[in-house]
């Protein structure tokens, strides 16, 4: 149990790298699709809805497998520069996680945008603020504050999702845990250590989000 701890801790770094990269890209993707969802053009709107429906309606495992095993099959892709990225399981995992969390994030942000009272936007307009500034300086900050609790859940779900990287040969926390279990046949001990590390991360994320919620709450 003690000897496995350093190994698992080392693997935690991989998990954290995967998590932070996919959350970073996923946030932008989610914001982009949330804005598309609010667009009045029915085709753009449907496109963004279809994206989020497909990625939320299928398991993350399928998405990773399509990207890692499936895309390599297309001959044309192998000749382009994209192949440099797509042959690495690390980048495939990040692409899959980004697309997945992007879909969930777009839903969270969309509902946050929709809960903004029209009066706030109208107030901005009557003060002579341009639409662009209203969007960047009024709508986005309010939407971010509104979506904090739901986004915190999404971060935790994504952290658990990164465990699937172990299915495409990446040695993240779950991957290393599985390796140790299958070599030592001590599933319970390894589960306690690895699970403890995951729980610790959940605990930290939970509290950071709670702190941010408090900091940016409307009543101060």
């Amino acid at each position: 149990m003690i000897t496995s701890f350093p190994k698992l801790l080392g693997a935690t770094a991989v998990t954290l790298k995967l998590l932070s990269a996919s959350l970073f890209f996923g946030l932008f993707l989610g914001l982009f699709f949330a804005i598309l969802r609010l667009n009045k053009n029915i085709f753009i709107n449907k496109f963004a809805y279809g994206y989020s429906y497909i990625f939320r309606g299928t398991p993350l495992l399928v998405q990773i497998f399509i990207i890692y095993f499936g895309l390599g099959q297309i001959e044309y892709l192998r000749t382009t520069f994209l192949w440099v990225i797509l042959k690495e399981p690390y980048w495939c995992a990040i692409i899959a996680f980004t697309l997945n969390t992007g879909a969930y994030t777009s839903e969270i942000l969309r509902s946050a945008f929709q809960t903004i009272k029209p009066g706030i936007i109208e107030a901005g307009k009557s003060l002579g603020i341009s639409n662009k500034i209203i969007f960047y300086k009024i709508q986005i900050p309010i939407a971010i504050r509104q979506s904090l609790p739901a986004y915190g859940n999404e971060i935790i779900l994504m952290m658990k999702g990164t465990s699937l990287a172990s299915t495409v040969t990446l040695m993240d926390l779950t991957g290393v845990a599985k390796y140790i279990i299958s070599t030592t046949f001590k599933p319970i001990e390894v589960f306690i250590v690895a699970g403890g590390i995951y729980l610790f991360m959940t605990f930290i994320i939970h509290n950071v989000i709670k702190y941010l919620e408090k900091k940016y709450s409307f009543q101060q």
Partner: protein
Amino acid sequence: MELLAFGKTGWGDELFYATLMTIAVSITAMLVGFFFALIFTPLKLSKYKTLNLVGNFYTTVIRGVPELLVIYLFFFGGSGAIMYVASIFGYYEYIEINAFITGSMAIGIISGAYSTEVFRGAIQSIDKGQFEAAKVLGINNFGQFYKIILPQMLRLAIPNLSNVWQITLKDTSLISVTGLVEIMRQSYIAAGSTRDPLFFYSFAAVLYLLLTYVSMKLINKLEARYSRGY
């Protein structure tokens, strides 16, 4: 399209049975989850701090640890644990549990944690007066729960339970790592022998979308049924 043909030439019938297996595992896991929720929801709502702690421990740990890790625990630790229990009763032969039971137990425990939270929320949002009125009318605890609280609770719980169902359905794809032949595993086998992973994994995605779509429609009907009178 000939890849999907039924019979010996294609993978249609295999994938069809795999889809049935996914549905079977999901339903079993959901029922196992309800069973766990039945135990842990009262613990979470109990007046006693120790019981609260046990309930909270279950939901926090399961919801904070990746599903895959729980499945590995069951897959590698399951038969060991059963054999240990059996050895107490004097049975020392090797026992192997089948992948269906391990898988649906593992997913069931995960789905149970989510169901517990849903039921807790639903019960807590029922007006206190309902409990008191039942008491005043001299209805015993059993009748109070089954005739008064449960019907009201179900209406509130169904939308959230449909989320739990979706999560459970998607989680079953993870059991493929234990070798149970459900959609994901069958696609993996088909992709391996035909060297066409793109097609088979995309088809798996379509199957999952179909399952979530159909179950959504059914749940909406159920929701309408339980919201009669509102």
